[in-house]
């Protein structure tokens, strides 16, 4: 029996068993699912995002571990950065803004589930705007630090502060770009589907990571 015949037999056999969903088999014609050339199942994007977030989490864990080690170093030169109230206040405000953006994002998705495309899009853009506000607030914190004479290399505490907030800010900026890309897709496809889901996962993860980083920075005393 020729190899192609065997394969064909297997294909036919398979399509008998693989009747539910998608479908594949000898004829290879598209049947169900999105049109377009992608063969990747939608849930793979969600899995991919979870994996990507694990890798990103390890990166932040490395930064935080380094900071913890440095903080406990016998050289004793760790000066807590958040001495006066103003830096703490700015950071608290930024944190609330970011939390708020997660809330607006959840609201946007609930609007989408209710079928309200316009509402979804509006709240989605509000989320992006709040993200931009967060970044602006971080930059403001940086400017205030510079005005107080605390630069990147001034002391270990300031070095880690700039490094950690910059690393998070870069990731968040990437998230904002992703949100805007999703925002300007055709309305018909916007509310549903995987891009919204994975962008939301990323955004909420950035928020959660910020909470973790923020509490580390805020508790900047001797360990």
């Amino acid at each position: 029996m020729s190899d192609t015949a065997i394969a064909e037999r297997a294909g036919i056999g398979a399509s008998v068993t693989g009747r539910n969903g998608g479908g594949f088999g000898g004829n290879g014609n598209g049947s169900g699912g999105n049109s377009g050339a992608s063969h990747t199942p939608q849930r793979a994007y969600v899995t991919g995002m979870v994996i990507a977030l694990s890798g990103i989490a390890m990166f932040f864990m490395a930064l935080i571990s380094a900071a913890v080690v440095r903080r406990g170093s016998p050289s004793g030169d760790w000066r807590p950065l958040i001495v006066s109230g103003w830096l703490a206040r700015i950071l608290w405000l930024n944190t609330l803004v970011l939390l708020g953006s997660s809330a607006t994002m959840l609201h946007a998705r609930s609007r989408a589930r209710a079928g309200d495309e316009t509402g979804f899009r509006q709240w989605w853009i509000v989320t992006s705007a709040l993200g931009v506000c967060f970044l602006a607030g971080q930059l403001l914190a940086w400017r205030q630090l510079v005005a107080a004479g605390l630069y990147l290399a001034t002391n270990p505490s300031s070095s880690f502060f700039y490094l950690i907030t910059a690393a998070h800010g870069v990731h968040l900026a990437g998230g904002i770009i992703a949100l805007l890309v999703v925002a300007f897709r055709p309305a018909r496809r916007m509310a549903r589907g995987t891009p919204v889901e994975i962008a939301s996962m990323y955004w909420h993860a950035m928020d959660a990571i910020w909470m973790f980083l923020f509490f580390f920075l805020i508790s900047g005393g001797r360990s």
Partner: protein
Amino acid sequence: MSSSPQPVHAPPRAPIGFFRRYIFSTDHKVIGLQYYFLSLVAVTVGVVLSLLMRFHLVWPRAHMPFVSGGVMRPEQYLALMTMHGTIMVFFVLTTAPLGAFGNYFLPIQIGAPDMAFPRLNMMSFWLTLVAFGCMLSAFVVRGGAPISGWTAYPPLSGLGSITGPGEGMGQTMWIVSIGIFCFASLLASINFISTTIEMRAPGMHLMRMPLTVWAWFVTAVMSLLAFGALLAALIMLVLDRSAGTSFFIPYGLVVNGELQVGRSGGWPLLWEHLFWFFGHPEVYIAILPGMGITSHIISNFSRKPVFGYRAMAGTLCAIGFLGFLLWGHHMFVSGMNPYSSLAFSALTLSIGVPSAVKTFNWLGTMWGGKIHFDTPMLFSIGFISFFVTGGLSGIFLAQPALDNMLHATYYVVAHFHLVMAVAAIFGIFSATYYWFPKMFGKMMNDTLGKLHFWLTFVGAYCIFMPMHFVGLYGGIRRYSDFTGADYLVALRPLHMFMTIAAFATAAAQLIFFYNFFKSLASGAKAPENPWRGTTLEWATASPPPIDNFAGHFPHVFRGPYEYSVPGAREDFSPQHLPPSEVAGTAEGAPNV
């Protein structure tokens, strides 16, 4: 886990045009080949660097062409050594096993049409290529290539060119290159893991995956979790070098008579911890795919199932997991807390257990088999031999009391070269000879392959076994020559022997290159399944069509290593054939 069918849509049109087809392709097969050819270039560069090193060690005052000044200076040796290690570890051993063969064969072996994220895959390759370009550029920037070793410990690497030549721009290019490489690896890991989880063909349960797929999967998970730490460390190193921070630079350094001001209590050991937290999993990333390939090929050519398939899959996972817990064994004499050394030592010795289990299982796979000695099998047998030798020298290094006398001697160099430079490379050769017919539709010349094997097998042992003795005697690594202390002169005969062996073995690799390219051009046409294998890559044409299976995606009916099943029609039962197709003759005896 995944038993639901994959959606297949309109049959994809092959991309038209040379560029879309061969250069900017999203086809995992093309990307796999791109990685493979990149690693071929990288290994050539790496071997040439090592030959220059070996030459200098024996004839340090010899006049050398192309070297400015005519005679190689110590810092040039160190630059060669740094680049040799970096290029080999990153651009050969992390690229070829996973990036090349993993990309090419993971989707096919699980019955998928491509990776989960083809465009991300393409981006990973191009970033890796850019990283390689950056790395090579370190040779030509002012000051030359860095001299701090592939481990780049600060403050040597953290203060710029005042610590030595090459530590200026060269070190910066090195850091940029590896940083880009980190990013590329992270993207690639996402692809590998998602694809393995989500895109397996119906019937391809986890316990029916080939061990190569298991190995690539565990390797990708390790890659995902390790490269983040390296990226963090690199960013901090860049800031120390150019922004005056003190993550790793302590106070009060006096370099070349110059007091380094503006630094505060940074800790060089922080770099070591972060680097080795990445660095140890990295070496397992280099070897694990080779282990998967060895299991796969030993089974195929012994015509027997893998002995203890579940244990083989489990030990891959165990090595992956344990590999993250023992980075401190690189730091026994670093000034790290001596109590933690005991913990790291115990964990390091424990990882010898799954490795030993794998070795015994490979022997068990051959035991009672019907072994055919085609070239892929020879290299897999060689892999086992080198892995055993190299792994056992690790048992010495894992004990801190012995490490006190062996650390940073040639004993360590022997150990890691045997496992990485030889065993892992044998895994790559094995995979090349095995899968060449599938990838290119042509057969390689088996006689030349056998010749290549024998010369490399003998040659590699000649190069690396004497290094144990050099190390025991007190030969220190990373020395550019042996004029520094009297007793080292006695080692010259050993070094001479190793250098000659190195040149001879390198020359033998020309046989491989000749065979490879000649067969590519005019090898005999390869059948679909020249090795009579059971896994899914042998169920499609050589080379496979654009979507891997010409629309006839397989359904999997059995495990991956059903060889010589009693009562089967043939001595192999392919995974994709329904039971009726593999059932034997009326007498029930397999027709061999």
